[in-house]
């Protein structure tokens, strides 16, 4: 099911406006075939989450940051899925706990259909918190806070590194 998240960051006369259209679905054997025209920047073997984006998006420069392999919020989402799947309140004890193979489970696939933005209200760095906010909405957990400030002199936004955020408790309603 497609989930739409409208990310808005506004601290000046212009802001960062990004709408993300994506779905979260189990990774199936034929997923790679179905999405053969897409890319897979996140290694699904090491995470509950794999990321696919449509060709048309990849060709757009907006996803060049994905090549950095770092999707803000991916660890939070993985941890959240781990807790839901294991019905545990405590965080995973080891990195292995976050691997679906530990539980003979299939990883989840985030398939991004479209990233819509206004070119004059956009900065590439905003994609990271936007994806994180989408993940939070799709997985039903509190989105990590966005630590950003606007430099009037440089007319651009700066983002602080992703904070070490503790996952908040939320209802186990997404993965069954």
């Amino acid at each position, binding site marked *: 099911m497609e989930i739409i998240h*409208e990310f*808005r960051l*506004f601290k*000046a*006369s*212009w*802001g960062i*406006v990004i709408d993300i259209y994506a779905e979260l679905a189990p990774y199936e054997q034929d997923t790679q075939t179905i999405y053969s025209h897409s890319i897979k920047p996140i290694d699904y073997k090491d995470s509950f989450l794999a990321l696919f984006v449509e060709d048309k998006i990849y060709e*757009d*420069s907006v996803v060049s940051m994905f090549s950095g392999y770092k999707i803000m919020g991916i660890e939070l989402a993985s941890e959240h899925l781990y807790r839901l799947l294991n019905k545990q309140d405590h965080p995973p004890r080891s990195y292995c706990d976050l691997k679906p193979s530990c539980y003979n489970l299939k990883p989840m696939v985030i398939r991004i259909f479209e990233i819509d933005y*206004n*070119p*004059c*209200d*956009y*900065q590439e760095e905003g994609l990271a918190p936007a994806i994180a906010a989408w993940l939070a909405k799709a997985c039903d957990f509190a989105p990590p806070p966005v630590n950003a400030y606007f430099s009037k002199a440089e*007319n*651009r936004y700066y983002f602080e590194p992703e904070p070490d955020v503790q996952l908040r408790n939320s209802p186990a309603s997404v993965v069954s």
Partner: protein
Amino acid sequence: MGLDSGCFIPCRYLDKWYERESNLQILEFRIDTSVLASFHQIDIDLLPGPKRAKWLNQYSKLYGGNPTHGLEYIQRGTQVGKEHFFAKLVFRHLKFQ
């Protein structure tokens, strides 16, 4: 929507939009300064921060608002220069080249 004079800002502005829509082109126009000054207008950048945010949230569709401001001319700074928005009612005053 008009643009600042000179090429630098319009070219960057056009480049930004070209990424989304390759059929776009810039149409230049002139307008008498006295007519321009007579428009019911606002420069968003001149508003103090909280009022600016409130205004955009209330009237900008981009930020979830409803453009029922009734203004004829709006200026707003962006990442690539100033945007100038004109209401349809005043298009007759724009002299396209």
